[in-house]
């Protein structure tokens, strides 16, 4: 077992390196700035096949094809916005990790706010009820205090 460990480690290093080389193959970038731009752009885009990975990280064949396509479009002088538009036209807003604000995404953008407001409403109601309850308890009354149900 102990003897097998170095072999295992060596294999891990070797094949781990291969897997990485396969995932992000070197591309002939015109400049370092372009490479940085490419990495930045692909990290904002979602792989349509494996929807929890970015195009930059994914090893799926379609992600590789799309990375190549983005690279080609960059060589043709397209801007980041144009490239995003190109992908959205074909794969819909799903490719964007940052979805645009429009009719179909209103719930996505403001849903959490709605839930927050709803929760605030419930809390407000509870506080009002409780303060009214304590006010009633403060005023002297002839009858014995009754259970108002606020025992939780």
């Amino acid at each position, binding site marked *: 077992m102990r003897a097998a460990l170095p072999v295992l480690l060596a294999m891990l290093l070797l094949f781990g390196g291969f897997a990485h080389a396969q995932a992000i193959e070197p591309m002939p970038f015109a400049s370092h700035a372009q490479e940085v731009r490419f990495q930045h752009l692909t990290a904002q885009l979602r792989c*349509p096949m494996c*929807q929890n990975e970015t195009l930059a990280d994914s090893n799926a*064949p*379609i992600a590789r094809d799309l990375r190549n396509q983005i690279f080609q479009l960059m060589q043709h002088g397209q801007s980041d916005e144009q490239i995003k538009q190109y992908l959205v*036209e074909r*794969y819909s807003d799903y490719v964007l990790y940052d979805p645009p604000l429009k009719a179909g995404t209103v719930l996505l953008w403001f849903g959490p706010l709605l839930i927050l407001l709803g929760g605030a409403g419930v809390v407000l109601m509870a506080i009002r009820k409780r303060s009214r309850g304590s006010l009633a308890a403060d005023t002297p009354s002839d009858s014995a205090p009754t259970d108002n*149900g606020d025992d939780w």
Partner: protein
Amino acid sequence: MSRLLPFFGFVLLVVLFGFGIWWNTQHDPQAIPSPLLNKPAPAFVLPKLYEPTVNVSKSDLLGKPYLLNVFASWCIECGVEHPVLQAEAPTLGVLLVGYDYKDAPDDAKRWLAEHGNPYGVLIADQPGQTAIDFGVYGAPESFLIDSQGVIRYKHIGPMTEDVVATELKPAIAALQKETP
């Protein structure tokens, strides 16, 4: 009343949870609705699988509706779908166009020899470039394209008997009603 409030909250959560499960059995969470639906299909020029020197273009196929089926020999789910296509192709009433996606031609030919060839026209996209224009991200995918070259219906994932009966055939019937 307020004593029951947590219970109602719990029931609400159970209903929401149940709805989530039901929704996921009815819908493929991986399926991306195509933005190309009801838009003109992208222009393409692709070689035939069996005659690589002969090209088929979008305009060659205009005039009659057809079902473009994206498949590949490496695609496991295509093998699941294939018997359905074999059985249904003659009764669909539209041309079935096979779109061999990112496949070595020899592998595709071997696969078709083994599983049968239901396609009226067979084109091959080995680099997968044109498929990007179609928004293809996996196989199998099927596009119903009308006589004007507009994509009218898309199915992602294997065609099942159920999908053919409840979605594809009604969509084809609607097309045929339009153009008598």
